[in-house]
C-alpha cells in the first residue's frame, strides 16, 4: 500500500532546488530549537475535523419535534401552515419542526492565549493518559450552519433507496417559502474520502428550509500527549455555549423562545461533552507498542502548539522537544514573534523531524519489523579462472544473508553528488553464508572449504529518501527488503495514525540539520477520479 506513496514521490521529486532554497522559507527558521514540528494548513485541519465529526456521528446535529400549532411562535406557525396539506394527512406523512446544525468550519485558531503545552514521559506506563495543559488553553472558533426546517416523513413507497437529497413530494411547492429550497444541506461535503467511519445521513424525508442562521462555538482545546509517542490537538466541547445568530426575523423570533432554545439544546447535546480531534493524530513511532516505545528510554516528550500565519492563513504548528521543558521560542505576540515559521510551502502538511527522534524510532522499528527470513541472492563475484591462476574472471555466488534485528547507527550523510539529496545511512550487521559457487567457466565448486564459513559483516544501507529515479531506471528490490523498508520508514513520511489519501509528497533531507522535512497534499475527489483509483485511504498503519 505504501508503495503508492513512494511511486507518487517518484512523480513529484523533492528537489532541494525547490525546497531548501525558497527564500521565503529559510531553512534556519525551521527547527528553531525543536526536535520535531508538524504544521497543518487550514484545509487539513478542516478535513480532519470534518472526518472526525462524521466518524463520531456528530457532523450533522439535528432535533425534531412533532408539529403542534399551539407550541410554535407566531411567525414560524405562519410559515409552516401553508405547507400542511390534506394530501400529507392522506399519505400519513407526519410533519415536524426540525433544526439542523451542520457544516462545522474552523474559523480561527488565534486567540489571546499562551500556547498550550502537554508533556508525558514516553517511558511512562501504557495506561497513562497524558497531562492536560498547565497554561490557558487555546480556544478555536468553530462556525456551523443552522437550518430551521419543516420536516415531513416519507410515506411508504417502493423506492427505499432514495437519496437524502431527493426532493420528494412537495418539492418546489409554491407559496411563501423562506429560503425556497428543499435540502439546502450539501451532503456531498460530508462524504468521507478517507477513514473507515460511518457516513452519517439525516433521516429520510422531505425538508422545507424555513430559515437559516449560524452557530458559533468558542471551543477550548486540549493538547493530548501519550506515552506511545502520540499526540494531537483536540477540541473539548464540554461546557461550550453555542451562540446562535440569524438575520431572519423568523429565526430570531424562534431563538427567543423556550421552544427554540430547547430544540437547539437537544440538537447539540450529543456534541457537548465530546472531545474531537482537530489536528492529525501524530504518531512519531508509527504503530510501535507502548512496550517498544518504553524500551527506547527516551527523555520526556513535550509538545507545544503555536499558530503562525502564511499566505494560506493560519497554520497550526505542534512543536516537539525531547527532554527540555521547552525547545524554541513560542509566542504569538506581535512584539516577540515566534521563531517558528510556516514551512508548509503551499502544502497541506509539513513535517520536520530531527535525528533525535527518527534515530531511536528507526532503531525500534528496525527491531519490530526485523527480517527473520534470510535473503538468498545470486551475485557475480571476481575469482581466479583456475585454482592456481593469477587470471581472474566473473563467477557466480549464491549467498544467504541474515540481517540483524539491531540497527547500530543512523545518520543523514552529505550527498557527494549535488544532483541528489543527502542519503540516510543505516548500519546494522549481516551474517553471510555462501551456499553455492560457480567459477568463471560455469563449473560449480562443490568443496567450498573456508568459503563455506559464515561471515559477520556490516550491513549498510544508504537511502535516497526524496530523489526520483533517473529517467528510464527501474528499481527492483528483494520483496523481503522492500516490505521491511516500507514498514521501517513509513512514519518518516506519514507520522499520523489517520489514513489520509495523499499526493505530491516531497521533502528533503539535511545532513547539516540532521533532519528530514516532508510535505504533502491531501488528494481531492477529482484526483481520485483522474487517477482511476478507488476512493478511500491508500495508506494504512500496521
Amino acid at each position, binding site marked *: 500500500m505504501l508503495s503508492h506513496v513512494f511511486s507518487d514521490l517518484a512523480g513529484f521529486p523533492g528537489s532541494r532546488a525547490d525546497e531548501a*532554497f525558497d527564500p521565503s522559507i529559510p531553512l534556519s527558521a525551521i527547527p528553531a530549537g525543536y526536535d520535531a514540528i508538524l504544521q497543518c494548513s487550514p484545509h487539513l485541519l478542516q478535513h480532519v475535523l470534518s472526518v472526525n465529526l462524521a466518524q463520531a456521528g456528530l457532523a450533522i446535529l439535528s432535533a425534531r419535534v412533532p408539529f403542534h400549532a399551539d407550541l410554535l411562535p407566531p411567525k414560524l406557525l405562519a410559515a409552516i401552515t401553508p405547507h400542511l396539506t390534506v394530501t400529507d394527512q392522506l399519505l400519513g406523512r407526519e410533519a415536524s419542526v426540525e433544526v439542523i446544525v451542520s457544516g462545522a468550519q474552523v474559523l480561527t485558531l488565534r486567540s489571546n492565549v499562551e500556547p498550550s503545552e502537554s508533556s508525558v514521559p514516553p517511558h511512562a506506563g501504557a495506561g497513562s493518559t497524558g497531562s492536560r495543559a498547565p497554561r490557558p488553553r487555546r480556544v478555536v472558533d468553530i462556525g456551523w450552519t443552522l437550518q430551521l426546517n419543516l420536516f415531513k416523513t416519507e410515506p411508504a413507497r417502493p423506492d427505499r433507496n432514495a437519496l437524502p437529497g431527493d426532493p420528494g413530494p412537495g418539492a418546489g411547492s409554491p407559496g411563501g417559502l423562506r429560503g425556497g429550497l428543499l435540502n439546502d444541506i450539501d451532503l456531498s461535503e460530508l462524504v468521507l474520502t478517507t477513514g473507515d467511519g460511518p457516513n452519517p445521513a439525516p433521516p429520510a424525508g422531505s425538508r422545507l428550509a424555513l430559515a437559516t442562521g449560524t452557530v458559533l462555538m468558542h471551543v477550548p482545546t486540549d493538547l493530548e500527549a501519550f506515552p506511545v509517542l502520540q499526540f494531537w490537538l483536540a477540541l473539548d466541547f464540554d461546557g461550550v455555549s453555542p451562540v446562535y445568530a440569524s438575520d431572519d426575523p423568523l429565526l430570531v423570533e424562534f431563538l427567543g423562545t423556550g421552544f427554540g432554545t430547547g430544540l437547539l439544546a437537544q440538537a447539540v447535546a450529543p456534541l457537548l461533552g465530546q472531545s474531537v480531534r482537530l489536528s492529525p493524530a501524530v504518531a512519531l513511532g508509527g504503530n510501535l507498542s507502548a512496550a517498544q516505545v518504553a524500551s527506547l528510554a527516551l527523555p520526556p516528550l513535550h509538545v507545544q502548539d503555536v499558530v503562525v500565519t502564511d499566505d494560506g492563513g493560519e497554520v497550526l504548528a505542534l512543536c516537539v522537544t525531547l527532554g527540555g521543558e521547552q525547545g524554541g521560542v513560542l509566542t504569538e505576540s506581535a512584539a516577540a514573534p515566534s521563531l517558528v515559521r510556516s514551512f508548509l510551502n503551499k502544502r497541506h502538511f509539513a513535517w520536520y523531524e530531527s535525528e533525535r527522534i527518527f534515530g531511536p524510532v528507526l532503531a525500534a522499528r528496525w527491531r519490530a519489523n526485523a527480517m527473520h527470513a534470510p535473503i538468498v541472492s545470486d551475485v557475480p563475484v571476481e575469482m581466479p579462472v583456475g585454482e592456481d591462476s593469477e587470471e581472474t574472471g566473473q563467477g557466480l555466488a549464491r549467498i544467504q544473508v541474515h540481517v540483524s534485528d539491531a540497527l547500530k547507527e543512523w545518520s543523514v550523510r552529505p550527498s557527494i553528488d549535488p544532483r541528489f539529496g543527502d542519503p540516510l545511512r543505516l548500519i546494522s550487521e549481516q551474517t553471510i553464508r555462501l551456499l553455492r559457487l560457480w567459477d568463471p567457466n560455469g563449473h560449480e565448486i562443490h568443496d567450498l572449504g573456508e568459503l563455506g564459513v559464515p561471515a559477520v559483516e556490516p550491513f549498510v544501507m544508504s537511502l535516497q529518501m526524496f530523489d526520483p529515479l533517473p529517467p528510464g531506471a527501474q528499481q527492483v528490490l528483494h520483496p523481503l527488503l522492500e516490505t521491511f523498508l516500507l514498514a521501517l520508514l513509513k512514519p518518516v513520511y506519514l507520522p499520523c495514525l489517520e489514513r489520509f489519501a495523499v499526493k505530491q509528497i516531497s521533502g528533503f533531507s539535511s545532513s547539516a540539520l540532521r533532519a528530514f522535512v516532508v510535505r504533502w497534499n491531501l488528494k481531492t475527489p477529482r484526483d481520485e477520479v483522474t487517477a482511476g483509483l478507488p476512493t478511500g485511504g491508500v495508506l494504512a498503519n500496521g
Partner: protein
Amino acid sequence: MVKGDAPGAFLAGMAGTPASLSGGPVNRAALLRESSVAVESASALLGYYSHLASMRACKAARRREGPAATHPLEAELRLDAAKALASAREMAGAALRSARHLKAAGQLDAVLDAWQTGLEASGSVRVEDLWHALEQDAAMRQGLRERGVSDELWAEIGRQVGSLEGRVFLRDGRSAAEVRLAGQTAWTTAVFASSQRGMPASVAELLRRGEFERLVGLFEAGQPLPFGAAGAGVSLEPVDLADLILAGSLLSVESVAQHKRKLEDTGLATYAGSEVGVVLFIAGLVAIAIGMLTVGLFCPGGEHETLCTAGKVLVFLGGLAFIVAGGFFAAGGVRELLIISMMGLKLDLGLLGIKTD
C-alpha cells in the same frame, strides 16, 4: 634525502625493491593528465578554504550588525562552495582513475612491497622524519614543480601532511602505522595489506574482490554510490591500499559536501570545526595523486630510483593523512564501503522508485 639512521635505512631499503613484474604497462600520458587535473583542483580547493577562513573572520566581525550584513557574502560563498565540491569531485576522480590504473599495472602492490622491504631494513620509522626527508629532496621538488605543483600547493601539503606524527613499523610481517595529528591525544593504527590474489580465503573476501573497480566506475559514471559516501575509515584490520584511496577520496568529497550543505542549510559558522579534517583530506588526496604520478612516471624501468622512492613515500604519507582525517568525521570502518552491493540489492538508485503495481 637521508635524515637520521632509521629513515635513511628505510628509504634505502625501499629503493632497493625490484620494480613490479606482475602488472601491465603504465600509461604515463594518462597519469600526467590525471595529475594535472588533481593539482589544478587541489589548488582551487585550497584557495577556497583560504578564502573561507577570511569569510569567517568577516562574519564574526559583522555579527553585531545582524544577519543581513553578511547575507550577500554568504550567498556568494554558497556559489563558491558548489564550485569547491565540483573541484573535489574532479580531484577525487583523477586520483581514483590513477589508482585504478596503477593497481591494474601492479604498481600499488609494488608501493606496499617497497614499504615492507624498507621497514624490514630499518625497523620502526618516525612519520615526521619521512616528510622531512621529502622536503629536503630538491630533485623531487623540482620534478613536481615542472609538473604544475606550485610552491604554494607544496607548502600547503607540507603544512598538513607535515603535521602528522607517529611511526611506521611492521606488525606480523605487514606494514603498519600508528599516527595522529600534532596536538591530538589519540593514536590511530592501520595495517596495510596487498591486494588479494589467488583463491579468496573467506566469503567476505570473495564478495569484496573487484568492488574497487566497480565503485570507481560508478563514481566516474556519475551514478549514486551504493554507500552514500564512506564513513570515516579507521580500521585496525588489514586495509588494501586501493581501498584506502577509494575511502579517502570519497570522504574528501563528502567532507566538502558537508561543508557546502552546512552553508546552505545553517549558514556560515564563525568557527572552523571539522574543516581541519577537510583540508587534511585534500592535502592527503593531492599527496597521493602526485605520489602516484611520480610512481607511475619514474618507477617502471627503475631508472629514477630516488624519485620513485619519493613518490612511494608521498603515497604512503597521503594514506596516513586519510586515516587521520577520517577521525574528524563519523565513525565507521573502511570496510563499510564495500558491503552493500554484496547481495545484489541495488539500493543506490533510491528507494523511492518502488512500484508494485
